[in-house]
């Protein structure tokens, strides 16, 4: 049993690593397809043929594809990322943008857990009761709301009609901690609403599954109150389903907050990807694509290790 689990874990990690190689190769290949355009972009549309060839070879485009791929990977891992079309250093730009996105991500994840766990526990006290049904309806509405609409509503409510928070922009943590939190609160809140809706739905479902299992029925029969059984027996196994979800959230928050960041004009990784796309700045978006894939792969591996650790510890949690 133990050995089988370990083999399965290793197999899954291998799978993630291999898929990372495939993605990086595809990203490299596709971005090199547009290399010709870059030469024309630098030299202008009516550049002479030999100038284009010279620039292409100075950028290393006439070498065999595999050696260029290795150079690409080496440059990526040694943080030798080059410059944007406008001449900024990509490494400095991404470091600055990523810190904002990571901050939003941490606030969102913490808030989502703080919201979703008590709410699900409260709703499951009485299945099909008022709180349960009400939260189901609310979750349905939040799921159906387009993300920018949620962002715009929050902005209208809390920064224009009731001016509690700034509607856009960003103040760095070094300048003012309170200003920093105030600028990031609304974007994080709108992401929190979406993520916690998903968390509550999943957690409620797995809690209610656990509540019908025989060991819970046994505890109830022995006279434990429903409230205590939820906390002591059902919650720990049900929370396993949150771990896989958590890693998915990290994956989607690293990049998927592009819309929210754009609406609130927060300088994060997502809004950088959007502006790079509109400027056709392939070198920036290639690096972002690589970083996001790497981060997603890492979070998947970590989630699998945690799930492995839990299922190795207690057999009944794993299922």
């Amino acid at each position, binding site marked *: 049993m133990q050995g089988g689990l370990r083999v399965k874990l290793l197999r899954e990690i291998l799978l993630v690593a291999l898929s990372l190689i495939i993605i990086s190769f595809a990203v490299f290949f596709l971005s090199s397809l547009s290399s010709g355009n870059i030469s024309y972009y630098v030299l202008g549309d009516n550049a002479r043929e030999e100038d284009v060839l010279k620039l292409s070879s100075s950028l290393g485009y006439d070498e065999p594809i595999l050696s260029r791929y290795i150079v690409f990977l080496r440059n990526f891992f040694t943080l030798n990322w080059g410059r944007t079309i406008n001449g900024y250093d990509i490494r400095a730009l991404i470091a600055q943008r990523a810190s904002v996105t990571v901050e939003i991500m941490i606030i969102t994840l913490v808030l989502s857990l703080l919201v979703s766990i008590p709410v699900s526990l409260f709703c499951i006290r009485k299945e099909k009761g008022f709180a349960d049904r009400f939260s189901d309806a609310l979750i349905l509405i939040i799921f159906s709301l387009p993300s920018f609409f949620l962002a715009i509503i929050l902005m209208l409510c809390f920064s224009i009609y009731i001016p509690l928070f700034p509607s856009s922009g960003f103040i760095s943590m070094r300048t003012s901690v309170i200003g920093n939190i105030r600028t990031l609160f609304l974007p994080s809140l709108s992401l929190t609403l979406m993520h916690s809706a998903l968390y509550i739905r999943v957690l409620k479902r797995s809690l209610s599954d656990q509540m019908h299992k025989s060991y819970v029925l046994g505890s109830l029969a022995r006279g434990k109150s429903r409230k205590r059984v939820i906390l002591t027996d059902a919650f720990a196994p049900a929370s396993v389903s949150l771990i896989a979800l958590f890693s998915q959230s990290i994956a989607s928050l690293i990049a998927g907050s592009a819309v929210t960041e754009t*609406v609130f004009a927060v300088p994060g990784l997502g809004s950088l990807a959007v502006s790079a796309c509109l400027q056709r700045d*392939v070198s920036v978006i290639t690096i972002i694509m690589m970083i*996001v894939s790497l981060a997603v792969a890492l979070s998947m591996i970590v989630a699998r290790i945690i799930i492995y650790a839990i299922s190795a510890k207690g057999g009944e949690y794993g299922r």
Partner: protein
Amino acid sequence: MVDKRKLIASSAFFFSLLLFFFLTAGISEVDMDSSLFPPSLSHPFGTDIYGRDVLSRLSFGSLISIALSSLITVTTTIVGLLIAFLMDRKGIVSSLSFLVSNTMKSLNPIILALFLSSVFRPGFMVIFISISISHIPDIARTAYSRITIIKKEEFVLYAKAEGMGDLEIAVRHIIPQMRKEVLTQSISIFSSSILTESALSFLGAGIPVLLPSIGGMLSEGRPLLLSHPSLVLIPSAVLFLISLALHLMHDALDFDS
């Protein structure tokens, strides 16, 4: 279990929305003289900043979005089922299809679309590819977990013993048995691709600007949010209704299981 009443009600809701879009869709020319008209009989939702009728553009945009998303959903479902059956094979084919599915799973549709549209040109193809790729694994996983259960059932074993081919067993016995799970997943892919497509159009990497799209209308209306909130609120409400109808359908199929 399927909640039949809820399913009928939500389908009726969705198809009446579709009918409404069909009846009101139209092409509206730029007419700067009628810029930003309030709602009236000839323009029930008013006109936008270029003087185009909001209702006809909105309906046309919704139809484009629904058509594109249906195409994405159908493709995703077929390819996902194919991968699921390949996963169930033995040896290298199985490992490779797990690898393909895992690779697709770790791609985020929005970032992928932004990447592809800066390498190629933004447009339908980019939206189609990036949304499909990120959803194929969902179908594949769902179908695969059903296949592993169904293939141990007696009627499948019996068909195999009678000498029925793998393809025929798949089509005649396995696919009908997982109809409900796959359909549920397809509907959730449908609604998520409508939302993703409108997000991409909102960001400027989606449907070409010349065609109407809900996302495009939202990004045009956003600077006018305070003076003309209806330009943002009406398209958002329509998007919400489409997505709500699909979510209700999904929940009706996936009732308490």
